[in-house]
């Protein structure tokens, strides 16, 4: 596969020309509330194709999970194609930062049923999506590249750490779902701003943390006035007392070692994706209406 990739645009074009997939249908939905509030257009799109073996495959892309492509197979439940299941098999991730990127492909599980009701299709989440094992990874930070097994190991560890961090964030008072990673919307503050004050108040301000009241716990800033409270890692200072008070044990070492901040700096997109994932499947596309916009 690497050889093909390397033969630049020419081979890519040839590959496209010789791809025997046949475009079959495209389904699109807009999240109703967002649309009404004139927030950023948050759409989800399911594209179904038929491959050379006459098998139906699908790709789900959504603005709630930017930089991802959720792929799987389509199982028809009637001959007309008005009732089918989308069985999730993989997810592709692409996240970049100022200094590098994290690209990867993971196995995944989950299932969504689509059924035609009148002029639209209604979706019902049968099995919630879960990200499982990293199959491929390509990581860069400055001039360091991690690929192959080393890349897979690093991305898997990063996803595991972020998954735990996201679980912790959901115990607080953050919104259920965010439609924008970096910018403020009519719903409120951006995802980045909210998690940054919870995870790293040493940088983004304890005052902001108190004012925003995003934690489900009282945290007294005066508690920080304890001896030997500071840890210096990667030229950043972290407060042990805050870590110990706020974070579950599994995350304390991750934060105090600087790994959490590195993940935040290098893979903020993955925080956003993993945070929104549950809510997207529970709240957005469960019982959601889709328009079939194009047919072969």
């Amino acid at each position, binding site marked *: 596969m690497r050889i093909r990739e*390397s033969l630049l645009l020419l081979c890519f074009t040839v590959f496209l020309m010789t791809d025997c997939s046949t475009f079959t249908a495209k389904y699109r939905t807009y999240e109703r509330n967002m649309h009404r509030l004139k927030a950023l257009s948050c759409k989800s799109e399911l594209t179904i194709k038929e491959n050379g073996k006459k098998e139906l495959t699908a790709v789900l892309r959504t603005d709630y999970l930017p930089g991802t492509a959720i792929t799987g197979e389509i199982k028809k439940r009637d001959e007309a194609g008005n009732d089918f299941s989308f069985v999730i098999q993989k997810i592709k991730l692409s*996240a970049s930062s100022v200094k590098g990127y994290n690209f990867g492909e993971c196995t995944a599980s989950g299932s969504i049923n689509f059924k035609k009701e009148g002029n639209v299709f209604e979706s019902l989440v049968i099995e919630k999506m879960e990200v499982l094992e990293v199959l491929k990874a390509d990581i860069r930070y400055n001039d360091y590249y991690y690929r192959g097994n080393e890349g897979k190991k690093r991305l898997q560890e990063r996803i595991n750490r972020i998954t735990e961090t996201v679980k912790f964030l959901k115990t607080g008072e953050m919104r259920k779902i965010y439609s924008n990673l970096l910018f403020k919307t009519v719903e409120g503050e951006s995802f980045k701003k909210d998690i940054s004050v919870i995870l790293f108040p040493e940088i983004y301000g304890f005052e902001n943390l108190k004012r925003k009241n995003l934690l489900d716990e009282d945290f007294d800033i005066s508690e920080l006035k304890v001896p030997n409270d500071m840890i210096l890692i990667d030229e950043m200072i972290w407060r042990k007392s805050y870590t110990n008070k706020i974070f579950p044990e599994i995350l304390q070492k991750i934060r105090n070692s600087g790994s959490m901040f590195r993940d935040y700096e290098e893979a903020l997109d993955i925080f956003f994706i993993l945070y929104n994932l549950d809510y997207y499947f529970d709240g957005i596309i469960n019982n959601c209406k889709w328009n079939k916009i194009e047919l072969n």
Partner: protein
Amino acid sequence: MGGNNLSIRGGDTEGLTTLLDGFIVRYPYQWSGMYSIFTPNVVDSVKFSAGIFSAKCGFATSALMEVNSLTPDEGFKIMAMTSLADSEIYIQTPLWKNSGLLLGGRFIYYDLVNLLMRGAASSMGASLNSQYLRDGYFKWFWKPTEKVEWYINGFFGSDGINMDSSSMRGMSDESGISNSFNLDYYNYDTFWNTGFKILPNDKLFIHFFTGYEYLTQGYAGSTGYKGSQKYSDAFRAYYENLRLLNPALPDITGIDSFSINSDSYMKSSKILHSIQTRGDIDFSLHEKAMMSVGGGGIFDFNKSGSSGSMWGFVWENGSPVYKKMEYSSEDEDKQILTTFLYFNFNINIIPEILKIETGFRIEHNVLFGEGYHVNTYPIPGPRFNLTYTPIRNLKFLDSLSFSGGIGLFSKAPDVSYLSKEMGLKDFDVSVPKTLTTVVGTELKFPIGLSFKIEGYYKYVFNRYYVTTSGSGEDMDYDIHTDGIGHAAGFDLTFEKSFSRWLDGSITYSFIFAKLLNPYGSDSDSTTMGGEPAGIWFYPSYHKFHNFNVILNIRPASWCTITPKFVLSSGAPERETSTETEQSYGILDDGQVAEVYTSQTESKYNDSMRDDLNFQFDLKLSFGSFIPRTKLKWELFASVENLFVFLYSPSESGGGGVNLFTGKSQTSSGAKYSAQIPTPNFGLKFEF
């Protein structure tokens, strides 16, 4: 060949040698040392050793730069950059399993910068040179198995500078004769080498390669006089007196002026063909000891020549006559065969606390050409280095180390002056040597801070210099290898390694260096290279103090400000005096020209120095990856020599006297570089 004028710790400028994966690159510079041929996009790592380097490496007397090329094993990558003065593109691609290719190209031009700066340069009386630089890079590798790697490195580079000062030297108030000057300097270099790295087992590593380099440098130029000039009253009086003594001289009564139209041409070139091969074997004798053995050879084939047709005054029948003189010299082919053998030990006596590196190499040179064949005595090269780290892993101090070493270094001399007329026999030529000792200490602190001080003393002996005897066609060249010298000093380095906020280094060097060419009868004697003979002197490249600061300031992760500050004391300046005399000349068409002859005396002066050199460069860059892609962009703007308007050191040499007015004038060489800040901005993409 060439010269970068880079002296390391008081050493000769030829004493620095650069290796690319072990292959000696003879002239890794372009634009006379302004640029290195290596760019970060083709280089994996660089190790610079100014002290005692391993017995594995030779052919250097002051320092060694070991460059390791990038192995294109990171999949498909592309980097493209364009700016006002520079365009570069590098592509890495895998070919087949465990094989990759890197192709790169760099093109530097100053046309757009010159266009921007033309007005400023003109107002400051500086001329802007037209210059170009074109480089191509190639690296291929293949690992047929995990334990074998085959690679090919290739480079082709060409650069040149055109100095055209015709417009700067137009007609003066007194003279209607303009002087034009044009010079094209060129430098072409290509080298290719191929080698194998084999790891038969975990205790043995074998590396061998062979390669070829072709390097040619030279210039072609022209200078001329064109126009007419009225005779001055003083000249008429002077000439009439001469005619009273010599009535055969042409009469200029009733003639107002003379006119001239002459063009002189000259060209010169040097060519080097070099073939190198070497093999190295590393044995792991013990978990604490590594032994290396190896050997190899270098065959250099040198050729040089020059030719031209120059107009000038020569004495004929008692009068100076303006004549065109043709000259041509095709130097004989001159070769050097150098062979070497070495062994080296790396021993960690107490791991992480006490380690030594010691070794011995022996080199042999044969110098030969048409009519001569000179063997030199084999040169021993013992080396010893010790590092002791008594303190480690304290809360506020990572480590404290002491180091010391001693070594003997040598490098074969320039053979361009050798000829059969010298009657050289075996062992008549000694190879220049330097005995170096160093002692230093280094402190490493947490968060990447380090402080290092290293002092050194060098004794230079068997220095090579050339003197002349006789004149004109009877001039003889005499080779001497009895030059000696002392160099001592210390380097201070304060460094902060990569940081998210601020990193960089501050360095200061103090250097003392004096040399002696014993052959010379009086203090006015000089060698062919212009060095004094018979007295101790500071070499022309010597500077007592060098202070450098380079910082990377990152106010935000996407923004870097890079100031660079260089301050150094002046190099030795020669004491010059010029005496001008009125004279006359008979032009080729019989006209009488009013001319002024001048005689310039240049003498070494121990206390005279050029001005302090000061330079401040500033670069500002912004960059990031485009969201959810592997595409990185960077926008940058820079200014070199930002404060040159406020302070510009004087440049020695380059003065002269106008042939037709006798007035002092600035020669073409005095301000050939623009004494104005050089701006640049550009955009870079990386995928």
